[in-house]
């Protein structure tokens, strides 16, 4: 697989798994208004994943659903940050949300400058939605920033947040978050916990032969 497809899959896997992790709050968020708002963010992320998989699929001669569901679990390259199951801990969920959106903004800004017009174009489209995710993250940061459990959550998730970005982009993240760059939890072939997630995520799809319509 070439570097372009690899990059697209990394981004798409991040958005798919984070979108799913965030959608785990559907129906059980701290209060009803937030439930609706957070669900839209999850849907946007899955929508971004789909658009990114489609670009990769065009290159790899397959389709978006096949890339999202039909790879083996070891083939996914999502950052460990998005894999963490944080329900029912809202402080850690918001800490991840704030850290991820900050990291993602840096990555998307860089991608907008890409020589490849398709990549730059999709980055610009994604950015237009991410603006609202950042506003949402900021309003929650204003509310929870002073809470001890929020500070603890950021402390715990910081090495994971660094792992979302490639090494050359990490100093920018450290600067925006106001923390020191430390050793990151790097992307790697996912472990057992991810395999369980994948297993459930694909169980319906795998119950019919490949190519079945759903």
């Amino acid at each position, binding site marked *: 697989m070439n570097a372009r497809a690899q990059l697209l899959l990394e981004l798409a896997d991040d958005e798919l798994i984070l979108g799913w992790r965030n959608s785990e709050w559907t129906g059980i968020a701290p209060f009803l208004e937030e439930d609706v708002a957070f669900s839209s963010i999850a849907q946007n992320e899955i929508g971004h994943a789909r658009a990114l998989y489609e670009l990769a699929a065009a290159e790899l001669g397959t389709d978006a659903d096949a890339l999202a569901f039909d790879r083996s679990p070891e083939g996914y390259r999502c950052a460990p940050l998005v894999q963490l199951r944080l329900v029912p801990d809202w402080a850690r969920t918001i800490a991840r949300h704030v850290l991820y959106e900050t990291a993602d903004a840096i990555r998307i800004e860089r991608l907008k400058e890409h020589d490849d017009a398709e990549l730059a174009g999709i980055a610009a489209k994604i950015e237009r939605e991410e603006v609202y995710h950042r506003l949402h993250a900021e309003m929650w940061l204003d509310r929870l920033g002073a809470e001890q459990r929020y500070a603890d959550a950021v402390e715990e998730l910081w090495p994971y947040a660094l792992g979302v970005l490639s090494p050359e982009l990490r100093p920018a993240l450290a600067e925006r978050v106001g923390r020191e760059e430390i050793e990151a939890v790097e992307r790697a072939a996912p472990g057992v916990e991810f395999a369980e997630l994948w297993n459930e*995520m694909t169980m319906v799809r795998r119950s019919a032969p490949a190519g079945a319509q759903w």
Partner: protein
Amino acid sequence: MGAREQEFLDYVQGGGLVETDDWMPDEYRARLIKFIEMHGNSELMGVLPERDWILRAPTLQRKLALTAKIQDEVGHCQLIYRVVEDLGKPRERCLDDLISGKSKFHNVFHYPTKSWGDVGVIAWLVDAAAIISQKALLKCSYAPYARVMKKVCWEESFHILHGRDTVLAMVTGTPEQRELVQEALDRWWEPLMHFHGTPIPAEEDPMVIWKIKSQANEEARQQFLEGYVPQIRELGLEIPDPRLRRNADGVWQYSEPDWDKLTAVVTGHGPASQERLEFRRLSRAETDWVSKIVLAEAA
């Protein structure tokens, strides 16, 4: 009934509409709160049978559509609880009464979901049954509730399409996929026949008398059968009621559902009732600190 109550009753029976700040008889207010609160509870509990399937949705499109449907239901709960709040019962108390089992929620949300077939059948047929009741509520004498129903009905129409499309994909798929739909229909038919309640005559139903509801239970069920039995059968699916047929006068005949079972289910003795309530209790306890610091300080 006092003269003022009688005057109010005549007013609503003559098609008069009531707003939040208007005077209303205590009985009318109490009935509104109980009914609308149960509707809100049902939207909220209706999230639980479906939410597990967001992860298991077999395509990205289905994952998005299902998430959006569940999001709508939470939104409906919010809108409907707001109506209850303005009638005098705060949302926190609605939630307290829901998780303590003091108030009720709709029978269909007391059942487990076992396959992706359930996701299609619920979105198509349970939502179809619900939209029949909700459309009739557009004529509710309590205008704030009727206004909310307008938005609810508009959003529900997407759900029925999503459900029907999901079912169509399966019935045109492999025999195993088709069987998922048939098996789900077999399990959901009884709850669907219970859905609109016992066939209490309109003239004896206090909800109809106060013009909170504009449609008798049996009328709603007949409308459901008339609209959906042909749609189910044209897909080659079998409805598990050998006595189901349409008489020459257009009235649907069916096996008498077990009404005691309905009572048992809605009073917390359904197959998934306690598990669902326990799940709600837990998730509320775990996030209570958030609403306390975010909503309470502003209240």
